[in-house]
């Protein structure tokens, strides 16, 4: 498919950033070539320089960054020496970009149709009456149903997947030759990810465009791209055909990445690199063990929220006709489940299915509307959330939060964060004793002691996750709710953290309620899985059974949406 003159030719690219600690080389001596109509994936973990490379190609590096060495040629034009005017006409018309967060990429107070028109008229693609028709046509092309109505929609009226389609529409409006998609589906549900990726690939193939997909997900890259470039710490470590990289990765880093990516049928220990011995001797697989003492029993749990907006107050005066929707919204609609002592239960579903609402209710951070929550024989559901915070029972239910950065107070050091529950609810008293307990916990979660006195922003994502876990287990809880504890982490860090959680569970005898959208991750850690959709449980059962022989259609859809490269993957 490739022609003689490549569309984009990056040679020996080095990008430097001026920081307070001197010059940092984010990208070093990178060579990438993309032919016409080719799809290329740049894969790497955070800090690998994959995004910086693409910013350099578009020449949208921030002020501190500059191309120090090398050359970037786009259809023969030298990007490094091009004037800002040339670049402006190039961006959008010849090469365009899809960003990670579609909501942030759209102007929140402008109708999406007008935003598309802006791009069109900017590059003189159409004008006057034709403009609106063209915009609607483009919305139609990205499979937005009822484009004529959606033309008048504001970004907040559309779902995440819809917004990303609008962003794609913006990027493709002027039929560019090169599309750079920077993590276009991170933050979207798997089923939405599948439709968005299918759409991107289909549209670009149809138009003979070239695509650069920047992602951290090897599976996604291999499924949708011809070739894969693997980057680590600013260097390209391997470039190969998707098939080759998936079946026989050559570079050790690629192999490590491959191993760390959860796939069906893998065991938790398989995620760790070959050369790192498991921290605890291989215990027999816990799946299948019998847990019969119920710890948490949830019955017919309901959470309703009043619908906000026009149905309230003054809005009643202006509303025409009867309310189209009921006054309340049921986020959780009568669900029942049990978590036994020592068991790990996965709670799986897409965003908005009520899984987080359920976990926060069980956590006693918000009050239920109806139903019962029994914890070790006590009806904790009836204790108001406000009072629960200071009860001794609080010690026994703890949580690891989704975003390790957000869940640590930026002004507290790591040790202060870990010590917080000990100081409030713990039995350990005295400055030195608390410090000693924190050090013990740090040791348990594998956090080097010298990091204890650092602030959260001085820690890496994995280290912050460890601090969050140490804080959650500080009081030896019986039940720990894990709310997507690895969603914000790189796969290799995720592998380590998941293994850590498993080891801790075994040594401390805790039960886990693991809330996640990722079935592949859930199957590694959980004995049983509960699948939720629209506030209700659609399926629950032993992990094996749900993943291998799902009963509900929805579970099957979820499983099918996980990107699997079609070629044989038994090579490894």
């Amino acid at each position, binding site marked *: 498919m490739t022609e003689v003159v490549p569309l984009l030719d990056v040679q020996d690219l080095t990008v430097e950033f001026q920081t*307070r*600690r001197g010059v940092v080389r984010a990208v070093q001596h990178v060579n990438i070539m993309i032919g016409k109509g080719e799809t290329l994936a740049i894969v790497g973990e955070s800090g690998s320089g994959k995004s910086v490379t693409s910013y350099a190609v578009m020449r949208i590096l921030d002020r501190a960054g500059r191309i120090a060495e090398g050359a970037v040629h786009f259809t023969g034009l030298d990007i490094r020496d091009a004037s800002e005017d040339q670049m402006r006409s190039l961006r959008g018309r010849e090469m365009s970009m899809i960003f990670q967060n579609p909501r942030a990429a759209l102007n929140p107070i402008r109708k999406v149709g007008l935003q598309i028109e802006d791009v069109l008229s900017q590059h003189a693609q159409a004008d006057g009456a034709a403009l609106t028709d063209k915009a609607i046509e483009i919305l139609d092309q990205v499979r937005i149903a009822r484009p004529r109505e959606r033309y008048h929609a504001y970004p907040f009226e559309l779902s995440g997947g819809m917004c990303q389609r609008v962003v794609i529409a913006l990027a493709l409006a002027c039929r560019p030759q090169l599309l750079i998609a920077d993590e276009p589906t991170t933050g979207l549900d798997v089923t939405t990810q599948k439709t968005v990726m299918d759409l991107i690939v289909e549209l670009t193939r149809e138009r003979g465009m070239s695509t650069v997909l920047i992602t951290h997900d090897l599976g996604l890259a291999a499924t949708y791209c011809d070739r894969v470039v693997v980057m680590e710490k600013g260097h390209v470590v391997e470039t190969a055909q998707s098939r080759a990289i998936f079946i026989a990765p050559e570079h050790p880093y690629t192999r490590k990445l491959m191993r760390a990516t959860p796939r069906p049928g893998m065991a938790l220990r398989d995620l760790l690199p070959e050369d790192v011995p498991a921290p605890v001797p291989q215990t027999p697989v816990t799946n299948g063990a019998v847990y019969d003492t119920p710890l948490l029993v949830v019955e017919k749990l309901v959470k309703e929220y009043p619908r906000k907006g026009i149905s309230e107050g003054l809005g009643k005066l202006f509303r025409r006709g009867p309310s189209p929707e009921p006054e309340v919204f049921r986020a959780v609609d009568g669900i029942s489940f049990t978590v036994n002592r020592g068991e790990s239960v996965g709670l799986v579903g897409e965003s908005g299915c009520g899984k987080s609402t359920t976990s926060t209710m069980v*956590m006693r*951070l918000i009050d239920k509307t109806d139903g019962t929550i029994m914890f070790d024989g006590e009806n904790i559901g009836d204790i108001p959330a*406000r009072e629960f*915070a*200071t009860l001794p029972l*609080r*010690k026994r*239910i*703890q*949580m690891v*939060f*989704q*975003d390790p950065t*957000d*869940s*640590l*107070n*930026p*002004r*507290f*050091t790591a040790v202060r*964060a870990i010590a*917080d*529950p000990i100081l*409030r*609810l713990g039995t350990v008293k005295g400055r030195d004793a608390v410090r000693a307990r924190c050090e013990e916990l740090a040791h348990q979660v*594998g956090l*080097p002691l*010298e*990091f204890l*006195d*650092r*602030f959260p*922003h*001085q*820690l*890496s994502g*994995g*280290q912050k996750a460890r601090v*969050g876990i140490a*804080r*959650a287990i500080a009081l030896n809880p019986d039940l720990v709710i894990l709310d997507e504890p690895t969603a914000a982490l790189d796969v*290799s*860090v995720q592998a*380590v953290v998941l293994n850590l959680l498993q080891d801790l569970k075994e040594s401390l005898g805790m039960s886990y309620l693991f809330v996640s959208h990722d079935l592949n991750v859930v199957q590694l850690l959980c004995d049983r899985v509960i699948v939720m959709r629209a506030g209700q449980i659609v399926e629950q059962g032993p992990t094996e059974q749900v993943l291998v022989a799902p009963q509900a259609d929805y579970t099957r859809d979820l499983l099918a949406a996980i990107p699997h490269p079609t070629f044989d993957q038994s090579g490894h």
Partner: protein
Amino acid sequence: MSNLALPKPAASNTGLGAALRHARYILSDNAVTGFAFGLFVLIVLAALIGPYIVPYDPLASDTSVALKPPSWAHWFGTDQLGRDVFSRVIVATRLDFFIAIASVALVFLMGGLAGVAAGFFGGWTDRIVGRIADTIMAFPLFVLAMGIVAALGNTVENIILATAIVNFPLYARVARSEANIRRDAGFVQAARLSGNGEMRILLAQVLPNIMPIMMVQMSLTMGYAILNAAGLSFIGLGVRPPTAEWGIMVAEGAAFMVSGEWWIAFFPGIALMIAVFCFNLLGDGMRDIVDPQRRT
């Protein structure tokens, strides 16, 4: 764990040494902040030791040298009673600075805490604090300050109180919106799980996090507080003559502007301007110093 290790940590992250290093970095990074900080040091010095180093007694009148233009003997000239304007400008720094600091501290306690509580608890607390702020905002602020001083009496304490009250809405609103964002942040939820009561979360977890923005606010209102105090004195509702105070000096000097004795009002006016300018510039620098994100 080798894959998670960072390069070796910096010498130390806590303690005075680190704070000074950090401050020096901020100051050298931003020349404007450095300049503002220099001015600030000058103002503080003038407030602390000014009265002991000035060449003349600021209150001593000597009609033989009245209304003399700036000279080597009297750098800023003399006023209608023959008092040395330079000495008076320097000595006045302490009073004006004290009024500004005290009123800002007071309004931070009142407005900052009320706003944080309003943003964090929401509901009735929010409504009450919000309506109080609205009520204050409904008056022209300077007129309100005049009214308070006129009603309570012409003393330094009342000037401080009046300045604090007129600034209340600014603090309450900034603190409210900042606290509101953090109300359901992960670390606040985590603090609840750790067994912290709501009040403790408010004071120990939320408040420190909105300090950077409050610092900026305090620095900006310092300038406004000085202007307000001087303004009250200017119209005769503040500090009483013959006390040396910038506002009174400008008021007294204003009458002589037309007859060409410009220096009497000019120099205290300049002092006032420099102080306000300095505090406004300092606001930005302050934010950088207290912001933990910039501390690496």
